């Protein structure tokens, strides 16, 4: 089974589950963390592979989970309608803390390993990407905080480039593909979605770790990357 962590009703995780149906993919949503059946022993060598999860409402032995992909960076109070309102903030923090611990101690591959800043990768903010790009010599837009009202309204064209595993798609030139590979490596990730301003030379506008997995070629590349890292 491949576990996709995401929200019910969101297109990217549900699309991944559909595309990987043959691999018994299933969606682990925040609601699953309010189901009995979770059992995780993070620090016992003998038990580490012997826990149990709840995925799509069903109890699943950890040994049956081949790989995990996360599409959410945190859990918010809005994810927890099943919890009384006054407890939601606390429960959201607990569930996020649990998922961070779970994702960093399970034995199977995780496509975009979490950090304390995000359950789906490095959790870099715009200024982190800009600084990293600047340090790598990649042309970048200046990130200004707070954002002024006339910023972001620019409409001068742009393009996006994605990397999943070794595959880089939509790069207009080998140079841009190289930049994306450099950024992905700098973030310690294996996936990236980068947006560039279409000028000469192109300039990085923004980046995020989770690409648009609704695209078949990206989903296939993710599967190949996971298969390539399975012990």
């Amino acid at each position, binding site marked *: 089974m491949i576990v996709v962590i995401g929200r019910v009703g969101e297109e990217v995780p549900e699309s991944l589950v559909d595309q990987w149906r043959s691999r018994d993919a299933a969606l682990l949503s925040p609601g699953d963390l309010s189901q009995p059946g*979770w059992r995780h022993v993070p620090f016992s060598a003998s038990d580490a592979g012997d826990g149990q999860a709840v995925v799509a409402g069903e109890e699943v032995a950890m040994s049956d989970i081949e790989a995990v992909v996360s599409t959410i960076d945190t859990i918010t*109070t809005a994810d927890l309608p099943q919890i009384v309102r006054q407890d939601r903030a606390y429960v959201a923090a607990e569930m996020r803390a649990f998922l961070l611990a779970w994702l960093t101690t399970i034995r199977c591959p995780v496509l975009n390993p979490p950090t304390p800043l995000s359950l789906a990768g490095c959790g870099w903010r715009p200024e982190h990407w800009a600084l990293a790009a600047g340090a790598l010599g990649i042309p970048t837009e200046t990130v200004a905080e707070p954002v002024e009202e006339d910023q972001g309204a620019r409409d001068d064209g742009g393009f996006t480039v994605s990397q999943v595993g070794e595959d880089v798609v939509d790069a207009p030139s080998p140079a841009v593909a190289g930049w994306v590979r450099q950024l992905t490596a700098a973030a310690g990730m294996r996936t990236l979605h980068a947006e560039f301003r279409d000028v000469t030379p192109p300039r990085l506008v923004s980046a995020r770790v989770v690409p648009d997995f609704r695209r078949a070629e990206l989903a296939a590349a993710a599967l190949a990357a996971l298969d390539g890292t399975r012990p």
Partner: protein
Amino acid sequence: MIAVHGAPGDETTALVLEALARRGAPVSFINQAEVLSQSVHFEADSEVRGNLELGDRTIDLRDVTAAYLRPYDSADAPAVAVHGALSPEGFHARQVDSLMLRWGDVTPALVINRPSAMASNDSKPFQARAARAAEFMVPDTLLTTEPQAARDFHATHGDVVFKSISSVRSIATRLDDDALTHLDDVRWCPTQFQEHVPGTDVRVHVVGRRTFACEIESDADDYRYGNSTMRPYNLPAEVAGRCLALAMNLGLEVTGIDLRRTPDERWYCFEANPSPAFAHFGEEIASLVSDAVADHLITGAPTRPLPFAQASGSAPSAPEVQPDPSEPEAPAEPAEPEVPAEPSGRNVPEAPAEPDSGPALPKPEPTTREPQRSPIDDTTQASPIPSPTAKEPTMSTIPTPAEPEKTLIQKIIPKQTDPLGKFIRTGEGWLVFAFNLALLIVPIVTSSLSPATAVEWAAILNGVTVVARSGLKIAAVVGTPPSPVSQKTTSEIDAIAEELAQQLPELLDRGGARAVPSAS
């Protein structure tokens, strides 16, 4: 220039400011009580630049060589609180907090501590992984939503405590007979159970490459919530080295590490607090640590900002680090534990509860939502209020009001939205019950009706009531145009507003100012 961001009533921040002043260091105190006269602006590309406005003063952020960040939620400042969390003033306060933290992650200055490094404290098991890499022992741990798994864990270990997984403030609590009866509540949220480790608590403050330890004797499972006595402790060099390794692994310049030494000299690590309130571990420790922090701010070498040094605590193994022998003051503790003349040890005086890490399996309510005043309010010395921006920690010594037994159920987590519970809570159920009781008992007692007639009348009246109530509901639904607002009660709207206010820091953190228009 050294920037200090904090609240005027916070003793730990005050100690750092005093130590810096004694050294004549140039300091700009970003006083959270004055947040409405402050603003932050920064830009990043190949470098970070920007300005900090403090009233009529402007500071070029590139002039800041070091920063000590220990903020509470600026929205709690009295000048802001009077306007409400969702007011423009509340938004401004949170934006200043957020931008200061974001700047703290990318500035090339030395920062105590970088927010991204502090985030490791948001998951205790995640941090425990780093502690294991630093060769500390950690208690056997179970994370579960399965009541039976918790019972089995208890049966295996005999003596078990439960506490929060996240950094939300909690009290480590024994899983006793009473708590065992409430285990079904764990099904609503993963809950952390740990074997109880017997021994003596030792708090180690790490500052740069220096360590300062104190031994704590307490009558409580969680020393922060009992009567505690503290005295300086001579930490073995090997253990000091592990502490330094852990701090390095987590990317923390300053940390307060909670250890327990078992009777057979094994060392367990529970937590590394990224914003330790060292002011409350006795005068000697407070003085030594604040001096060391000031020295570190003045002379310490900065660590690399986030994009170039992901502090995660996830390194598979920590380097073996020993206390720096070249630092004459490395073991700052006295060679022999110095026992003060009176009283022996140091009875921690009543001190404010820390803006600390969270509730146990338990719910935060009692410790995080008490209407305490913030240290931002410089007119009071009352307890700091924990806040999302205060990634603070554990400390406390302070006898905090014990939680009454009746709060246990509330503490054991989340409650499902339960129609029956709502029915009973609203009083509707009690009214129906009292109505029927009166209908049946009064006539019978007064002999005005036979029991059979009383039941008959009760049935008729209940039937009429149900029909009338249903009619009113239908009329309300059919006759009232859809209006989400009109269907909300005042309390519901208040609750939604509170929830939005709680999400604001997260929205700000995630999207910066871009998130604001949609949030508001």
